[in-house]
């Protein structure tokens, strides 16, 4: 069902004649799908997986730009035997178990603080905040003429013992602030 719904949504994206509202909706939708897809190209360290059937949690910190899209996207999906779950957090202190974290506004405007608090925890941090990757985030959604590109900073991911697939790296722009 989820797949069908996503398919329908994507068909809507390709319909091209969409207004500003529609464009925003579709952008959020694409990002939601990307967020979901990250789970397939990233491997978490074993200690981050409590058991083989524990849900893979996608957390949203701060404002939620996806509405129902994310819930619709992950509903009924699995990574291996693990189902997906969407959690919404208002404060960074609230974050308990989380595998992928989208940092929304307004917190994303000051990511350093949040990232510092999450440092070395096996959480894939994602945001569309400006220069998120250069500023220590792991994946940055870059909107480029209605297309969404990815910027990835592998250093914090490595530090958090996350393994990002080379395939993912290939389709993304790799940012290395330390110049390594």
């Amino acid at each position, binding site marked *: 069902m989820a*797949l069908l719904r*996503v*398919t329908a949504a*994507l*068909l809507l994206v*390709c319909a091209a004649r969409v207004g500003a509202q529609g464009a925003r909706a579709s952008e959020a939708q*694409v990002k939601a799908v*990307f967020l979901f*897809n990250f*789970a*397939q*190209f990233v491997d978490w360290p074993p200690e981050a997986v409590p058991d083989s059937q524990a849900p893979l949690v996608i957390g949203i910190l701060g404002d939620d730009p996806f509405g129902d899209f994310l819930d619709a996207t992950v509903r009924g*999906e*699995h*990574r*291996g035997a693990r189902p997906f779950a969407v959690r919404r957090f208002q404060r960074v202190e609230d974050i308990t178990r989380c595998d992928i974290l989208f940092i929304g506004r307004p917190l994303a405007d000051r990511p350093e603080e949040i990232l510092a608090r999450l440092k070395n925890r096996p959480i894939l941090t994602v945001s569309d905040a400006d220069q998120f990757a250069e500023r220590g985030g792991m994946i940055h959604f870059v909107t480029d003429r209605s*297309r*969404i*590109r*990815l910027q990835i900073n592998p250093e914090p991911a490595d530090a958090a013992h996350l393994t990002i*697939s080379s*395939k*993912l790296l*290939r*389709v*993304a722009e790799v940012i290395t602030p330390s110049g390594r």
Partner: protein
Amino acid sequence: MALRDWPIKQKMTAILVLISGLVLLLTSAAFAGYQYWYLRQATRDALSVRGRIIAANSTASLAFSNVADARELLSALRADRHIVAAVLYDKGGNVFAAYPAGVAGDVVPALPGPDGYRFEGGRLIGFQPVEEAGSQRLGTLYLASDLEAIYDTFRLSGVIGLAVMAVALLAAYLVSRVLQGTISQPILALAETAQVVSTRQDYSVRAPKLGEDELGALTDAFNQMLGRIEDQNRALRASQDELQRYANELEQRVEARTHELQERHEALRRNAAELLAANSELDAFAYSVSHDLRAPLRSIDGFSQVLLEDYATKLDESGQDSLRRVRAASQRMGILIDDLLKLARVTRAEMRTEPVDLSDMARDIVNEIQRTAPERQVACAIAPGLTAEGDARLLRVVLDNLLRNSWKYTAKQPEPRVEFGSVEANGGRAFMVRDNGAGFDMKYADKLFGVFQRLHSAADFEGTGVGLATVRRIINRHGGRIWAEGAVGQGATFYFTL
């Protein structure tokens, strides 16, 4: 020319080459079939491997909508010139990226088909799901390859196969030409020998034996047969020669015998002629003598009568008695001369053959005798209906003589009996005249029919001794036979055939 009329050499070569060709053809066909199947399999496997690799590499492109990356991935297919088209569809079935750039139309399906690789429309096509292991599907990869790779390999195999087949057939032909000799040579040798035997009739030739197989056995049997025929021919010729020798000998013997017989026949003929001449001379002599004796006899009798009648008074009793004796003797001599003339006439007379009723004739004769001697009582038994072919006048002489004889010789019998009949004798019919008169001694039986042969004195029974001789002559002239049986005092039986 029909196959069965081919020379055996060509036939065997043809059969061997045909079999080789058939085997090669079947092998090639099987191999080609296998190769075709294998090539399709292999090509499909190769394409599916390629598809899986590209699909695995393109997951991120699809997942994160990176068309450039997808195009770059697909463009790697340039290395394979058989790839006609490659298309990535996103999750929704829309064309996401395509190779070669701008490819479209009939080569690219508008929507992805069912997953899998298959041959369709002269191409090998495949729809490969694009997904990250254990996760949701991201899209579909479509690959289309032409079949030139298969055809190229197949063509090459065909050329090689044809070349191999040609060489193999040539080799089979050459080998069969050599090997067929092992079978055809003995057969041809046999045929040639048989030809020689039948055209030249020469059974001394032998077929050469070229091996110990069945054909060798056949050759042996054939040669043995020829040997037997030769032996039999020799034996046949020998027996023919012998037969010819016998035939020649027989011919010579027959010739000699024929010659001998001719000589004997000639001698007999001469004898018969001489006898005939002598006989007729004798008859003529007897006739003339008898005839010429009559005149003087009649003078003697006549003048004796004149003396007795005219000069009886001048003669005493004794003279008269002498004269009477002279007369009796001369009269007896006259009868004798008559009989002799009759005998001679029988021999000279012409014969006329006709049916004669002998019973009638016998009855007639008996009546006549009875008339001349009415004082005698003789019992006569004459079988009725006896007939024969012959001269009536002469047969009457026969019956007259025989019946008169019987009459005469039964004169001293108290109950005289005379029979005329017929009996069966020697498978034929014999007539018979039987009496119970004086009879005769059987040891004189052969003398009965001689002229002047008499078994009784004239004092007992008068007679001239010419009658039975006359009878025999007549019977002989009729080609018959006469014989007699009897015993002294027991009567006599005369048999004759005609």
